């Protein structure tokens, strides 16, 4: 086990290096940092020697060799904490990025804590009577949930709870944008939850749909297994069989999937955040990519890919830890 972890962790290093190199090239091409810089600083753009200086300090050389050299230049700066300032406004990147990361993780964790248990409950509910009305109802509901894309549900919810609600009842039921009212200072969990309600609902719809299906399939699988028949034939009550034997085993693959999902939270709430103006990673990405802000996008991508890879590893490990039949070495 220890050797497996060590090997996987060591493998992460070349994977991350290769991946960040690919991302570096793609982002250099996509954002064209030099042009963005010239756009934000039109006066400097007229002075070739200043531009040349910008190229040298940021490693924005041309051609494939230039990209490789530039990548290592960027990597050195990144690892030593010597990050380039953003192109737009020339601010340090990390404080904003950190705040965005905290906000997104907060939204993602709350939404997962609401949505995953609901989805699991639906899945168990359906799997207990397979083929009956409740099963098809849950299945149909899940497919409907899948079909409602986050941006559609977001727009529809905004229309209903803010605009039409205030038309019918005088004032909107829920706020539709931001994390706090404009000008608010400090930390206020009640107010924040109120602002987070609609985004949470939007994220939840697809999560509930997915987890109800995972849980149903996993539980049905376990319920038809031999060890469950053994447990029943020993005379254990149905309730105890379900809770002690079936559910615990059915949750093993779910934990793995949940680990993967948590890993993708960091960059995965873009659509919801963008529509509700929530100041998280998604908003950060869209703003930065609209500005072609390479120094902001690159750390963003590093955080997102690292999170995906680390949680991938955790998913594998959790699978091995929970299922003693799996040997990793």
């Amino acid at each position: 086990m220890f050797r497996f972890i060590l090997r996987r962790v060591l493998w992460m290093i070349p994977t991350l290096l290769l991946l960040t190199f690919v991302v570096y090239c793609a982002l250099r091409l996509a954002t064209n940092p030099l042009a963005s810089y010239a756009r934000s600083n039109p006066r400097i753009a007229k002075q070739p020697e200043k531009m040349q200086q910008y190229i040298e300090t940021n490693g924005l050389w041309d051609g494939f060799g230039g990209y490789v050299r530039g990548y290592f230049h960027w990597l050195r700066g990144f690892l030593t904490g010597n990050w380039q300032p953003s192109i737009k406004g020339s601010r340090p990147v990390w404080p904003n990025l950190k705040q965005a990361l905290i906000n997104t993780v907060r939204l993602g964790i709350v939404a997962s804590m609401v949505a995953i248990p609901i989805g699991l409950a639906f899945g168990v509910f359906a799997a207990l009577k397979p083929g009956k009305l409740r099963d098809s109802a849950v299945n149909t509901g899940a497919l409907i949930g899948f079909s409602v894309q986050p941006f559609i549900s977001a727009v529809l919810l905004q229309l209903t709870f803010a605009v039409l609600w205030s038309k019918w009842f005088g004032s909107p039921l829920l706020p539709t944008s931001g994390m706090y009212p404009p000008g608010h200072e400090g930390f206020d969990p009640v107010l924040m939850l109120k602002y987070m309600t609609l985004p949470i609902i939007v994220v939840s719809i697809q999560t509930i749909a997915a987890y109800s299906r995972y849980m149903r399939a996993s539980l049905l699988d376990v319920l038809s297994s031999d060890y469950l028949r053994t447990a029943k034939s020993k005379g254990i009550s149905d309730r105890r069989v379900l809770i002690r034997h079936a559910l615990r085993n059915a949750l093993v693959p779910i934990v793995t999937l949940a680990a993967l999902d948590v890993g993708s939270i960091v960059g995965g709430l873009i659509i919801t955040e963008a529509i509700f103006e929530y100041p998280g990673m998604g908003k950060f990405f869209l703003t930065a990519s609209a500005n072609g802000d390479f120094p902001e996008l690159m750390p963003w991508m590093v955080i997102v890919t690292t999170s995906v890879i680390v949680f991938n590893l955790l998913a594998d490990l959790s699978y091995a830890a929970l299922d003693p039949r799996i040997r990793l070495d």
Partner: protein
Amino acid sequence: MPRSTQGFDLTDLQIPPLEHIAVTDASIGILKESISPKKMAFKRFMHHHAAVVCTVVLAFIVVFVALAPITTRYGVNESIFKAEAGIPNQNLAPRAAAWFGTDANGRDLYSRMIYGAQISLLIGLFTAIVSVALGTLVGAYAGLKGGKIDDVLMRVTDIFLALPLLVVLVIVRGALKNVDWVVAIMGDPGSVRFLVILLSVIGWMGVARLVRGQVKQLKEREFIEAARAVGASTTRIMFRHLLPNAVGQIMVALTFAIVGAITAEATLSFFGFGPDAGSGLTSLGLLIRDSKKAVPPGYWWLVVYPCGLLILISLCINFIGDGLRDAVDPKMLQDS
């Protein structure tokens, strides 16, 4: 039905072919005559009532959309009447002259939705065909060969599929549109062709994983071993033995690829990375993007109808895919 009531014929004495046993389930009954797996899958599909209903609804939508100039009432960019002082044609609520109301430019929403659905469905179909063809080839090759190629492919697709789709699409789109020779092939970044190729470049990976899994299972079966024993080449095994047996799964992948492409197009358009709205063409995603502006003033028709149509189309295709999956893979169907 007990076997004795069905009479006795010679086929009962023979051992039925293996595949037929494998696909027999209780809802079909005991094998009396040989039913091809295709027919059996079709029968099972017909048992999935929601999928059948959705097929009919989708067929209706497709016919309606395909007959565009006949079924629409106005052109894509045609306003329902010329606006005069005191009689505006913008943002009108649904009425006889415009069943679903008009948009911010006084155009008939009903007609625009049909034209939009046309483009969206075309994008979905073309993207799905390209990415399924590509994904099938790559997935089948990797699954059959195994080894290094397989490992590398799975690692790469793992990471790509784990990254947020919108981020990948936005970055790849940005990178591709800055490379001259790519633009020469893919066309203008605002064109439908560019979008189809872009979505296919990402879309094949999911299909490849699915086909690879299927091929990996199939290649352990006896008939592949037999084919190899009589000296069939890898190409022959792949195209004559493996892929025909995976065709059900590939069909399922195709339906989900269609709905994936339609929603990806809508998402990209929603964020302003979609096809160019200026060139006299619209799509469901562009219509929903316009609806974002209609939310604050409360023009509900501009929001509800396009969103409803997109939900309806993806719901129908999702249900068809679900029904197909149950039909081609009876192991998944545990409730009959």
